[in-house]
């Protein structure tokens, strides 16, 4: 270990922690799940209503107790199935093989989106 290694570790560590705080500290519970495929809006589903949604025949989304999770995907890696359920604003589940994003959006917070984008 050299001095520069420690500087690198500390700098990156601080950046990571700050980024984590920035993304999570001000997040509020979201209202709807936005389903985006290939960058195109596929549908919006309220988090408040428990339901199981089939998406394009490739994935299945489950909304239960105000949280959303992927319960089925036809891809081999199944990474999205292992992701924790999402409920907070801007949290997302991504299915890379099917180019699909499930993203929590807060309806009463449009100016937040404008800043991020």
């Amino acid at each position, binding site marked *: 270990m050299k001095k520069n290694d420690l500087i690198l570790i500390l700098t*990156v560590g601080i950046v990571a922690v700050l980024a984590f705080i920035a993304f999570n500290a001000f997040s509020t519970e979201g209202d709807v799940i936005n389903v*985006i495929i290939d*960058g195109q809006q596929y549908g919006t589903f309220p988090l408040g209503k428990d339901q199981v949604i089939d998406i394009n025949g490739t994935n299945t989304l489950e909304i239960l107790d105000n949280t959303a999770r992927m319960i089925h995907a036809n891809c081999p890696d199944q*990474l999205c199935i292992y992701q924790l359920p999402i409920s907070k604003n801007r949290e997302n589940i*991504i299915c890379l093989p099917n180019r699909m994003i499930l993203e929590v959006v807060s309806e009463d917070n449009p100016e937040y989106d404008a800043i991020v984008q």
Partner: protein
Amino acid sequence: MNRTAHLGMMVTLALIFSYIEVLIPIQLPIPGVKLGLANIVIVVVLYKWGFKEAFLVSTIRVIIAGFLFGNPMMILYSLAGCTLSIIAMSLIYKRNSFSIMGVSILGAIFHNIGQTLVAIIVLESFSIIYYSAILLMSALITGLIIGILAQQLMRMMKGIRD
């Protein structure tokens, strides 16, 4: 001839590491976080041979491992990550200002950056940026572990290209 044989051995070793990683049944709930054992070999090849050889071994490893244990999509992500990572590491490893651990951590960070960039292009969305903090943190940890293991492998390979 000696060089070809040694590099062939390195590709094989990297493939074995890829296979061991597939066998580990633990799935983290965070997408994209992996130890990347095969990168031990890539770091060692970079130090012992150089950029060109590391790039070659890494590219062959990614393509073969992709067909054996993964899918074409995975090859695309891995190639972007590996290439960016080797370029970053090769820019600093000769200067002696960082140890092999620092070089490996930088490689891990750029590996994640490369994969994130491909994901942004494929998904046509910046949503994945949400994971950047976790990916940075995981790069620190995995990069350090890979660096330590690479250092050990270098010691065991005394006599090969010294």
